[in-house]
């Protein structure tokens, strides 16, 4: 029962196509875990499957011991998952403030405190608080997306490729933020940027062809050049 997120032989599909062929992984309370793998390996699809945005054909998906398979995405989110999608999921027609407010389960004291914490973590957002989200830069969008996923009392944060398309300087500050976040929140990170994954993740899983093929401690992967070459193409 001490596993927070548990996936066992998850097979998922979109229309006639099976995308995941068997993903198994576990994330314990307070851990930071990275999922690695090549382009098109199924990493993003796995997160979408957890969120119920992609349908599960078979396998077990549990959050805190409760099955989430077949549930509506919004109910899964309400079980305590903060989700940062690949393309940020920011609403352009809403202001930064509204992007926060729309995500809040309730506007109580704790939620507002968490929001203030996020604004301190990402000062850029504080400056742009009343602006429409369509005017934000790529990095600010990513910050808003991560920050928005933190305003609720979540059990786990799923982050999908935060480094994608961002400049190195911004990736660096994101990494600092994620390291700070993992000190109080469980994090499951999908990342292709190996350095970022190493910096944030304590353990890793590698997905290839829709299957989990390797797992272990991040420090071991850093040493194992052969494994890196085989699955990550570096």
């Amino acid at each position: 029962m001490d596993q927070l997120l548990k996936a066992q032989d998850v097979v998922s599909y979109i229309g006639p196509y099976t995308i995941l062929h068997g993903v198994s992984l576990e994330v314990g309370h307070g851990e930071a875990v990275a999922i690695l793998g090549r382009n098109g390996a199924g990493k993003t699809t796995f997160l979408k499957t957890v969120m119920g945005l992609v349908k599960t054909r078979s396998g077990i998906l549990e959050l805190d011991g409760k099955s989430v398979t077949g549930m509506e995405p919004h109910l899964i989110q309400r079980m305590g998952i903060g989700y940062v999608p690949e393309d940020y999921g920011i609403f352009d027609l809403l202001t930064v403030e509204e992007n926060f407010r729309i995500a809040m389960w309730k506007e109580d004291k704790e939620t507002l405190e968490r929001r203030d914490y996020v604004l301190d973590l990402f000062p850029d957002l504080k400056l742009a608080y009343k602006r429409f989200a369509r005017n934000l830069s790529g990095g600010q969008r990513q910050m808003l997306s991560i920050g928005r996923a933190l305003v609720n009392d979540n059990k786990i944060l799923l982050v999908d490729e935060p480094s994608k398309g961002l400049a190195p300087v911004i990736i660096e500050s994101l990494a600092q933020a994620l390291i700070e976040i993992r000190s109080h929140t469980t994090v499951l990170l999908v990342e292709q940027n190996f350095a970022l994954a190493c910096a944030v993740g304590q353990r890793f899983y590698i997905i290839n062809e829709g299957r989990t093929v390797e797992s272990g401690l991040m420090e071991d992967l850093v040493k194992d050049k052969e494994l890196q070459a085989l699955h990550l193409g570096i």
Partner: protein
Amino acid sequence: MGTFVTLIINGLAQGALIFLMASGLSIILGMMGVVNFSHGTLFLWGGYSYVWSYYAIRFSVVMRLFPDAVPLTRFGSILTIRGVQLPPDAALPFVVELGIFLAALAFAVVLVFALGYVFEKLFISRVYGNIPAQILITLGIQVVFTDLVRVIWGPNPFPIERPPFLNGVTAFGGARIVHYNVFLIIVGAVIAVVIHRVLTRSKVGMVIRAGLQNPDHVRAIGINIRGYFSLVFACGAALAGLGGALYMPLVGNVVSTAGMSNQILAFIVVVVGGLGSFMGSALGSVFLGLMGVAIAMLIPGLSVVANVLVMALVLIFKPDGLFGLAVKKHG
């Protein structure tokens, strides 16, 4: 000058009516990606149910207050619409007339709201994401429920009256100002302001604006967007219903083909104004209303084709609509 003012007021009144239909249609299209081909039926149901309830309430009120009032000719089939002739020199107090009018409007709006809610739950929610099926199914609903109106209230057109307190004309300079038209403009403006405030200020508005961009993302931040879909669809229906209810007294007779013809006007507005844009549909409605009145006066022969001609021209030269999309969807 007088004619000009008359023209503007008539055109704006027309525009207000079209707006009531087009705004709902446009928001539903933008947020859910559903083209509601049954919108005209909802308009029609609003009109018939308003007329029926207005006459029914008025009949019972008058018969209670004036036992010697004379029941008048009846129209209808399963449900009948019966007028009543007040005794000479008798009149209902203004408050009573207003009450009857508002009650009938409320009845129509609530009924059509419920109808829209049922449509969404029963039919449309099953075909989200499948555009051809949406078109086909709402078209089927349009045909069936329009015929149902004919079954219930009879297939023949019949004349009706406006509520007496709105049934006047004021000469102002050279202009003939029809009170009912002014009333329509006020209603249209109020509704436009209300919709705008709801969209920009409320949580519902936030969800609608977010849903315009990407419904999946809305679900992924813990919001049951399907619930909002039902609500928004029903509200759009209620707006159409209100449009129908206000339309019938304007033209002075009740015809079962009014649903389709007004739906087409609304479609043209949505296409001309830009799919999914609220401002676009508001401006487009005013534009079409003014143009319709102007052409009917200047070149009456052209009035049938003018709207379609405008639409065709817009599509040929500016396929995204005159006022563009509120959000460009990527991909």
